[in-house]
């Protein structure tokens, strides 16, 4: 029992509730939410330290032993993602002090962000499938409110798509939970894994796993992503950054967790399906990114394509590939947030989202240009930056298993993403300066400063990858050997 496990969920929840009382005091709201986000980073770092030195930490809520009660499980994979999520949200909050208008701030923006953060951390930490659903809903409810906050015409249109598709997939989620409970009599992840390993993964259970695959794929944007580029581009940059960095990754986490811990017996069916979906996602997402001219849509397709890339690792599921997946997931959360934040500044500077109407921003704000270039290179995986180790391991893992098609898809994706991001760089930053919104817009330096920590992390994560590797390997060891997870949950 370790009560620290609940801290990353409890801190944002408390903050969110307290901020409801203070919704007219903007300055106070900003400070409280920033301090709380930083506290959350500290809690995650502390948890990281504990997990690395004392093994997986669990908390039986209300003292009920698993499988009867709800258990929170902090293994290294979950904690790394919680840490990344709390860092990203701190930077997005800092950015939103300047990047979000007062009207939105007054309408519970900070409360909603913290509720969402609680849902995200809860989804990572929970060890119970139904509780995962509850945390998903907490996160989605807040995201519904965040995406429509401000109420422009475009937001309303995209919110409708977003809510309908998510309500549909949540319904499927509950249905598949019910099937699974009917088939196995438990919803505790560790207990499910034990029972299915004992009785064998029969046809009906594989069918349920396919249903869960559909549910999580909708949330992650794996193949079923048609709603994503539009809805992530509709809200202001700080909110899109949170969405792009956190929401799809929670879906991805759920996919990796369930298909490495529970449904790993019928890999020739389920993992084959995941592999096919991943390749399709990469091809479609890559072409989407290449063909678009709207900055936010290009980034939306980039989010999709990298989800496809991480799913490749899940399809291969050997040690190298999963280690790479953990590394890449952490990197991807941070770099996607950075890209969305920088794109937000770019759009504000030029007054348009279309890259063929931009030009010469480099002469106007060179720092923005170079930061964007470095972030793009990190996405592509140029060596000293953080994208490289993860990408290398995933491709190496797929070659080891003889899955050459998957490795080829990974390399193809890299080229397409490079093209799509360099296209933004060339069209928007090079050339003759065009119409710029110089007169009013003076926020760029401050906004760049608030995105700088993410930039720093990308560089450090790449340069000191060797020092970060032990943590990633602890995380992937649990993914490869489910018994470690099961023993940690049932040890008491």
């Amino acid at each position, binding site marked *: 029992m370790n009560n620290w496990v609940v801290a990353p969920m409890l801190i944002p929840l408390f903050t969110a509730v307290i901020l409801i*009382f203070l919704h007219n005091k903007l300055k106070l709201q900003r400070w409280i939410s920033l301090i709380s986000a930083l506290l959350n980073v500290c809690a995650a770092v502390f948890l990281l330290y504990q997990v690395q030195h004392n093994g997986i930490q669990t908390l039986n809520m209300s003292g009920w032993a698993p499988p009867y009660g709800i258990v929170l499980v902090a293994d290294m994979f979950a904690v790394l993602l919680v840490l990344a999520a709390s860092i990203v949200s701190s930077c997005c909050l800092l950015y939103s002090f300047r990047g979000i208008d007062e009207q939105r701030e007054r309408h519970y923006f900070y409360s909603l962000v913290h509720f969402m953060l609680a849902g995200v951390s809860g989804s990572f930490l929970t060890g119970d499938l139904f509780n995962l659903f509850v945390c998903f809903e907490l996160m989605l409810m807040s995201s519904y409110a965040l995406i429509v906050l401000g109420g422009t015409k475009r937001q309303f249109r995209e919110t409708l798509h977003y809510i309908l598709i998510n309500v549909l997939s949540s319904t499927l989620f509950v249905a598949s939970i019910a099937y699974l409970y009917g088939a196995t009599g438990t919803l505790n992840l560790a207990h499910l894994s034990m029972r299915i390993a004992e009785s064998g993964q029969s046809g009906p259970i594989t069918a349920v796993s396919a249903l869960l695959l559909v549910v999580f794929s909708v949330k992650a944007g794996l193949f079923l992503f048609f709603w994503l580029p539009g809805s992530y581009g509709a809200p202001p940059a700080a909110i899109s950054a949170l969405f792009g960095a956190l929401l799809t990754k929670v879906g991805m986490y759920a996919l990796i967790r369930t298909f490495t811990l529970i449904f790993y017996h019928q890999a020739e069916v389920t993992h084959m399906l995941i592999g096919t979906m991943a390749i399709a996602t990469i091809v479609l997402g890559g072409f989407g990114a290449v063909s678009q001219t709207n900055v936010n849509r290009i980034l939306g397709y980039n989010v999709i394509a990298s989800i496809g890339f991480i799913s490749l690792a899940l399809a291969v599921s050997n040690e190298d590939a999963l280690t790479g997946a953990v590394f890449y997931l952490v990197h991807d959360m941070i770099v996607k947030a950075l890209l969305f934040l920088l794109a937000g500044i770019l759009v504000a500077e030029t007054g348009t989202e279309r890259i063929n109407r931009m030009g010469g921003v480099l002469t106007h704000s060179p720092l923005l240009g170079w930061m964007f270039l470095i972030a793009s290179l990190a996405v592509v995986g140029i060596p000293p930056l953080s994208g490289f180790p993860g990408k290398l391991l995933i491709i190496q893992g797929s070659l080891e298993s003889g899955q050459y098609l998957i490795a080829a898809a990974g390399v193809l994706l890299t080229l397409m993403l490079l093209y799509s991001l360099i296209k933004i760089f060339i069209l928007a930053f090079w050339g003759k300066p065009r119409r710029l919104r110089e007169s009013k817009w003076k926020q760029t330096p401050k906004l760049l400063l608030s995105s700088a920590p993410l930039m720093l992390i990308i560089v450090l994560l790449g340069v000191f990858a060797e020092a970060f590797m032990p943590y990633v390997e602890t995380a992937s060891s649990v993914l490869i050997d489910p018994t470690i997870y099961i023993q940690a949950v049932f040890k008491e």
Partner: protein
Amino acid sequence: MPKGSDIFLQNVSKIVVFLVLAFALYLFFTGHSSPGGGFIAGLMSAGALLLLALAYDIETVRKVVPFDFKLITAIGLLIALGTGTGALLFGQPFLKHAFGHFDLPLLGDTELHTALIFDLGVYLAVVGVTMTILLTIGEDR
């Protein structure tokens, strides 16, 4: 519906509202180990307030409960979270509850439970959310 147009509904609901509220109170206290609890009691209380809004109008409800329902939700959440977190102070797992027997005047030997405080939080949150939703939709013309 203009005010004062439905005398039957208004007179009946004057009594029924209190019956419903009393039943909600019963459900609230019986909740810990038998069917009931903060959630269902909260919905029922919101139902009583809704009946009032239908028989009279929304202004009457606002006069009866002169608080911001959004704040009631927040207070409820704070109470519920606070009860769960209180366990941490005693080195117990999150959400752990405690109970004891107390000799109260009139009631005699009574079992008091921290889960009841948690339920109170749930009750307030449910009433607050339901009424916020209903009033927002009701005012939207």
